[in-house]
């Protein structure tokens, strides 16, 4: 029997306060000048008034833009390396959207595969996802084309549906079940609430009109890999910046660099982007020196290579790359116009 409870919107602040005792709670905020997930500061949960999605995807909570991998110091005995203390704090992301939650499961595939990426996995395993379904998706959203939907529960622990005066909370995972059970304040949802939620879900899904045909898309991309003219034309207006990758919830590529201090230094990793020519540049050559090659790599990585490797398209249709692109380069248009 699934657990379904109701949270009155006016009590949401109190609920987040309560959860903040056991978790570092992240919730949507514009305090930094941009919509992103930030540590809950208490007070009224007013973000429901404006929140559609964040600009910075919530992946940055488990995969920060910048992190220290280890520090090194030199003494007479030689170099000594030290990793930062393991971060095993429990986190809870409140209000993560289904597209962004599913994106984490896509990053898990790479970071959990073969050699585990401990830095990421530790944070990921300690992070609870309390998702909030979308009632008002953007015109750039296309999650439904990729097997998701505005109330998809994949990888969530708890899923919330906005039913007007309150949020209907449904446990998805065992952890989510435990969370809801031990949260004292919650009332059980009524049959009427559930009907309302069902209607909300259906209405939201109908609002999404952007679409791509994913059937056979990996094969199509493979077939046009060598079609230089197509990719050049496709890439013509792209300015080659890193917005679509750095702010993509599924993009995980990074750079590693050393930073010196007087007596040693740190090795850091920071998110990187395949849109940059230096990304693949070696001193003597660069296999993707041209913009069209980089655009092709970005598209193919998501829609061809990832399906080949993990049987999953590495895109969840969050639409950020379309919304935030300074020249409105639209990946759905490219995918819908593949030759052949």
């Amino acid at each position, binding site marked *: 029997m699934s657990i379904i409870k109701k949270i009155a919107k006016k009590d949401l602040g109190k609920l987040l306060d309560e959860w903040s005792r056991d978790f570092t709670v992240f919730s949507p905020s514009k305090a930094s000048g941009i919509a992103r997930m930030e540590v809950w500061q208490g007070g009224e949960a007013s973000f429901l008034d404006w929140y559609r999605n964040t600009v910075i995807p919530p992946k940055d909570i488990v995969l920060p833009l910048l992190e220290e991998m280890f520090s090194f110091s030199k003494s007479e005995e030689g170099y000594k390396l030290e990793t930062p203390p393991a971060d095993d704090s429990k986190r809870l992301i409140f209000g993560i959207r289904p597209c962004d939650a599913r994106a984490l499961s896509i990053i898990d595939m790479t970071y959990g595969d073969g050699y585990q990426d401990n830095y990421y996995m530790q944070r990921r395993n300690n992070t609870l996802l309390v998702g909030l379904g979308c009632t008002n998706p953007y015109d750039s959203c296309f999650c439904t084309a990729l097997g998701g939907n505005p109330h998809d529960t994949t990888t969530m622990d708890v899923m919330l549906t906005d039913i007007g005066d309150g949020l209907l909370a449904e446990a998805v995972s065992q952890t989510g079940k435990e969370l809801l059970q031990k949260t004292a304040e919650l009332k059980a949802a009524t049959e009427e609430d559930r009907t309302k939620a069902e209607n909300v879900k259906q209405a939201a899904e109908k609002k999404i009109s952007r679409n791509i045909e994913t059937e056979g898309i990996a094969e199509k991309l493979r077939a046009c890999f060598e079609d230089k003219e197509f990719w050049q034309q496709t890439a013509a207006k792209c300015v080659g910046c890193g917005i679509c990758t750095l702010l993509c919830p599924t993009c995980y590529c990074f750079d590693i660099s050393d930073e010196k201090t007087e007596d*040693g230094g740190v090795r850091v990793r920071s998110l990187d982007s395949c849109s940059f020519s230096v*990304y693949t540049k070696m001193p003597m050559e660069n296999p993707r020196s041209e913009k069209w090659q980089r655009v092709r790599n970005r598209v193919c990585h998501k829609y061809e290579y990832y399906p080949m490797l993990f049987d999953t398209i590495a895109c969840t249709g969050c639409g950020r790359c379309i919304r935030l692109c300074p020249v409105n380069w639209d990946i759905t248009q490219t995918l819908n116009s593949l030759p052949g």
Partner: protein
Amino acid sequence: MTIDNISHRKKFLAQDNAYLPHIAVIEKIIEETPDTLTFHFNFKDEKLKQEFTFESGQFGEYSVFGVGEATFCISSSPTRRQHLEFAVKRVGKVTNALHRLGVGAEIGFRGPFGNGFPLDKLKGKNLVFVAGGIGLAPLRSLIWNVIDNRKDYGKIDIVYGARSSADLCFKYDLEQWAKDESLKMTTTIDRDDGQWKGKTGFVPQVLEQAAPSAKDAVAVVCGPPVMIRFTFPVLEKLGFTPEQMLTTLEKKMKCGIGKCGRCNIGDIYVCRDGPVFSYAQIKDFISSEY
């Protein structure tokens, strides 16, 4: 390539954090060419020094702390484990920093990473090694490996070339191999430079003249991309099938373990699925992304 046939990933040795280097000490430096050095090194940790194993063709991520990391294959053979070796051409930030180090300096090493040469598939075969410039480094590990287990293999042909006689690497090995009657060694330089008494001509042409038989043979190719691109067609002409041609690829790498993204050729990650590939695996991509 699907998830099933990339299962040759090796278990990482001794520690969980694959991003954390082992400290190693440089024991000897050999000047190969004016811009290439070979470093002999050993791990500082005694236990690791004893237990470290690798396969020919595998690579490591080498750190100069404060400058960064760079990728090089292990150029010594696992059959000769007094120390490990890698060869560095001075081309960028990290390689320049390595060239400034002296004997006794400490570096970081992560690895071994990558798949290495499939020895089980080479056993009993005739082997044709084709290398250019510093591309001999990974092949050298395999060549010594094969020589040290000579009875396991058939005929051996080596074709090695460089731009000029001064650019030939591992001259001390070349001399030994030239004397070794169990193998056929051909060394060439691109253009006659006045001092060179041997063959001249580009590696692919010299290979074509040498014309090793494709029967029961595997060709192993490594060198600059342009040499690789011209060598495969020659091998095909000589009757080698794409499955009979192996190469080891070089790409910009950061993590070495298939996470950071940049070394892909299509859906193949050179660090994780390679660096050793058969031509059959990469021929779809080689013209446009390599």
